[in-house]
């Protein structure tokens, strides 16, 4: 039995696990956790086998397709891009499930937790495997629902319920844009086929879409006086969806609030998997982005901006998980930037962005799980109350250090020595430099370097405040059980060594993902449609540029060490309410006030909704007015019934006379 025929089991087994755990989990120990763990482990083995097979023959991808309804299909596509994502997602999900055994052991609703995480994993795997954009959207939304359920897991807490709603609605804005993109794409393809889609050809399947890219690019839309190519419109709308799901500015506001859920949820969904769906979407539709003028530039700029924007807020947060949340937003910005520089390097951008995605999944999940371990032990999120935790929890501290080194990107340039984050982040920054050289725009590069500095700063700040120094309060605490520390250790090893071992093979493997027996695309040919100038990947940057990322990372480490480790500088004056910059950052640029309080509540709810109510009362009034009119007419006609016989007689006589006269006259006329 060839393993590729079993690819459909990869999302199906966790879905079955969801159903079983939902109905029977309460009766089993640990809330039935064994079912999802077994299912995901099997999926992991399958994914790994398929990936190894693809490594051997990269051109032979796995595809299956069935009719769904009308001219849509459901189907599977496993190419290098999907394969690495599948393996990463199943592996990280498996580790987090094992970790959750210990973390959620005291919770009453364990079975619901494991059912929901199993469902989430199934949806995410379905998203990755989709061979058409509609199915991707279906799984995209399902993943969103799971996120809603898991963020609001402790739904009796009002803050959790609010955070879940905020997450769903903010990503919904992105989803509407994604849907709009699909609708326009469908309409264009429908017109290209003249309404008659041949049998066996499925509209909205990726091969059909990509084949017709040049035709779509030729259609122009007139928006507010500007001529915009449809392909740009569609890709920007898709990117809008990615902005929502991957927490890019301005739809990032849900991610920090999403920390209300259990930490394992944050690790699974908001570090490693769901938020990366946006990056995956752009990578999957990369041929369309290449053919669209300006789209990739916008992706690059927004990614770089988000990277620095989130990092600025990360350095002032006092909540462990908040810092990590902003760090996630920032790193996702890097991944988007990595895709955006495809304007210069073509299909390789998919490779370097995915590489950072996979590495980030490992070390960010590790960071969250360590934070969870700490919170589980000491019972508080606030870093100001911690300090010296390393003495009590050495394994957690060691793995956290490994993850921090990976996040900061510590390594020796020009060699194969370094943490995973070093290889992946450096690749992006180097290509940002190349982007600057080719297009003349240095903003992405400058922002990415600045963000690297801040990244190092905030993560080492977190490390020093939490793990080293003297305890600031009396918090008790103990090391976590093996079910929690073993996954930490595995992830730590990956965070340290995966990057160095696989960087060359990974990039070539994924970058060639669009050259295969299903979707055969020459990306560079599309670049001319998009008006991009591709450059050769040069390894000849000046030494300073090559070492710059390391320099800023070490600089950030030194600053954190001096301020938080040795406490040389007194931060009290800077960290006070009177410092306007601090206030701005701490209040997160007042986004909560602007988006939630002003826009959502005042403008939409109070403004539009009540206007609507007034209009509807107007309609009711019209109907009542009509009814009243009829009633009044009836009232006035009543007056004719005087009850006096003579009036009736008079009217009869008058009527008869009138009739006689009329008939005589009519007879005369006729």
């Amino acid at each position, binding site marked *: 039995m060839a393993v590729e025929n079993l690819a459909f089991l990869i999302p199906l087994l966790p879905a079955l696990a969801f159903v079983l755990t939902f109905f029977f989990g309460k009766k089993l120990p640990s809330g039935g956790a064994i079912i999802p763990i077994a299912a995901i482990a099997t999926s992991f083995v399958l994914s790994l086998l398929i990936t190894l097979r693809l490594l051997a023959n990269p051109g032979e991808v796995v595809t299956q397709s069935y009719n769904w309804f009308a001219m849509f299909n459901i189907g599977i596509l496993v190419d290098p891009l999907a394969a690495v994502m599948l393996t990463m997602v199943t592996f990280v999900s498996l580790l987090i499930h094992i970790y959750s055994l210990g973390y959620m052991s005291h919770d009453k609703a364990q079975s619901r937790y494991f059912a929901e995480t199993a469902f989430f994993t199934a949806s995410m795997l379905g998203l990755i495997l989709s061979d058409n954009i509609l199915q991707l959207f279906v799984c995209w939304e399902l993943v969103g629902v799971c996120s809603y359920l898991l963020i609001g897991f402790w739904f009796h807490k009002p803050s959790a319920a609010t955070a879940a709603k905020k997450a769903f609605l903010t990503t919904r804005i992105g989803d509407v844009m994604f849907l709009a993109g699909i609708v326009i794409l469908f309409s264009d393809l429908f017109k290209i086929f003249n309404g008659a889609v041949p049998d066996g050809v499925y509209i909205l399947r990726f091969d059909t879409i990509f084949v017709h890219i040049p035709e779509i690019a030729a259609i122009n839309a007139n928006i507010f006086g500007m001529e915009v190519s449809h392909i740009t419109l569609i890709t920007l709308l898709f990117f809008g969806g990615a902005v929502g799901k991957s927490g890019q500015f301005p739809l990032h506001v849900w991610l920090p609030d999403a920390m209300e859920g259990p930490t394992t949820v944050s690790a699974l969904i908001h570090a490693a998997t769901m938020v990366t769906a946006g990056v995956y979407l752009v990578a999957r539709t990369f041929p369309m982005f290449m053919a669209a003028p300006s789209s990739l530039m916008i992706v690059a700029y927004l990614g770089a901006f988000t990277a620095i924007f989130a990092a600025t807020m990360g350095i002032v947060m006092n909540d462990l998980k908040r810092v990590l949340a902003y760090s996630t937003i920032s790193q996702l910005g890097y991944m988007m930037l990595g895709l955006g520089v495809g304007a210069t390097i073509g299909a390789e951008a998919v490779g370097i962005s995915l590489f950072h995605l996979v590495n980030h999944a490992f070390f960010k999940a590790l960071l969250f799980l360590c934070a969870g371990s700490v919170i589980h032990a000491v019972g508080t999120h606030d870093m100001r109350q911690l300090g010296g935790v390393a003495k009590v929890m050495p394994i957690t501290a060691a793995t956290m250090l490994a993850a921090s080194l990976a996040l900061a990107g510590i390594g020796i340039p020009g060699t194969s020595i370094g943490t995973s984050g070093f290889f992946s982040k450096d690749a992006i920054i180097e290509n940002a430099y190349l982007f600057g050289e080719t297009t003349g725009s240095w903003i992405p590069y400058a922002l990415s370097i600045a963000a690297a500095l801040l990244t190092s700063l905030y993560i080492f700040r977190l490390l020093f405040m939490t793990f080293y120094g003297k305890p600031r309060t009396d918090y008790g605490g103990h090391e976590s059980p093996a079910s929690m520390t073993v996954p930490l250790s595995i992830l730590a090893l990956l965070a340290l060594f995966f990057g160095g071992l696989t960087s060359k093979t990974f990039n070539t493997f994924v970058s060639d993902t669009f050259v295969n027996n299903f979707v055969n695309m020459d990306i560079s040919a599309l670049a001319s449609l998009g008006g991009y100038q591709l450059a050769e990947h040069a390894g000849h940057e000046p030494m300073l540029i090559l070492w710059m990322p390391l320099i800023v990372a070490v600089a950030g480490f030194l600053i954190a060490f001096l301020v938080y480790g040795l406490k040389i500088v007194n931060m009290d004056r800077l960290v006070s309410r009177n410092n306007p910059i601090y206030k701005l950052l701490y209040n997160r640029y007042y986004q909560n006030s602007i988006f939630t309080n002003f826009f959502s509540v005042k403008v939409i709810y109070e403004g539009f909704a009540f206007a609507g109510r007034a209009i509807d009362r107007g309609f009711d009034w019209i109907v009542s007015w009509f009814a009243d009119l009829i009633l009044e007419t009836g009232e006035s006609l*009543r*007056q004719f*019934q*005087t*009850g*006096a*016989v*003579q009036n009736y*007689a008079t009217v009869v*006589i008058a009527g008869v006379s009138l009739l006689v006269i009329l008939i005589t006259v009519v007879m005369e006329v006729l």
Partner: protein
Amino acid sequence: MIPIVAYLALSAVIFSIGLYGLMTQRSGIRILMCVELMLNAANLNLVAFSSYNGDLTGQVFALFSIALAACEAAIGFAILMSIYRMKDTINLDTINILRW
């Protein structure tokens, strides 16, 4: 011979007087008397035409009409008596039970 117009004119005048009385009088008895006037005016008309055209149909019709007038007057007065016994008045303006 008296021209037929004279009879018709007389008939018309009597009918008009009866009509006017019917519409404006308050007393029930007067109204009934006006109805009699109108009926007799019609009879006059019928007999005049019958005489001038030599056709007896009109006079036969007039005899029927007189008989019917008598019946109707009897019933009318009987109703008026009942009203008087109930309401103690025959002023038809004040009897408007079927008012809206």
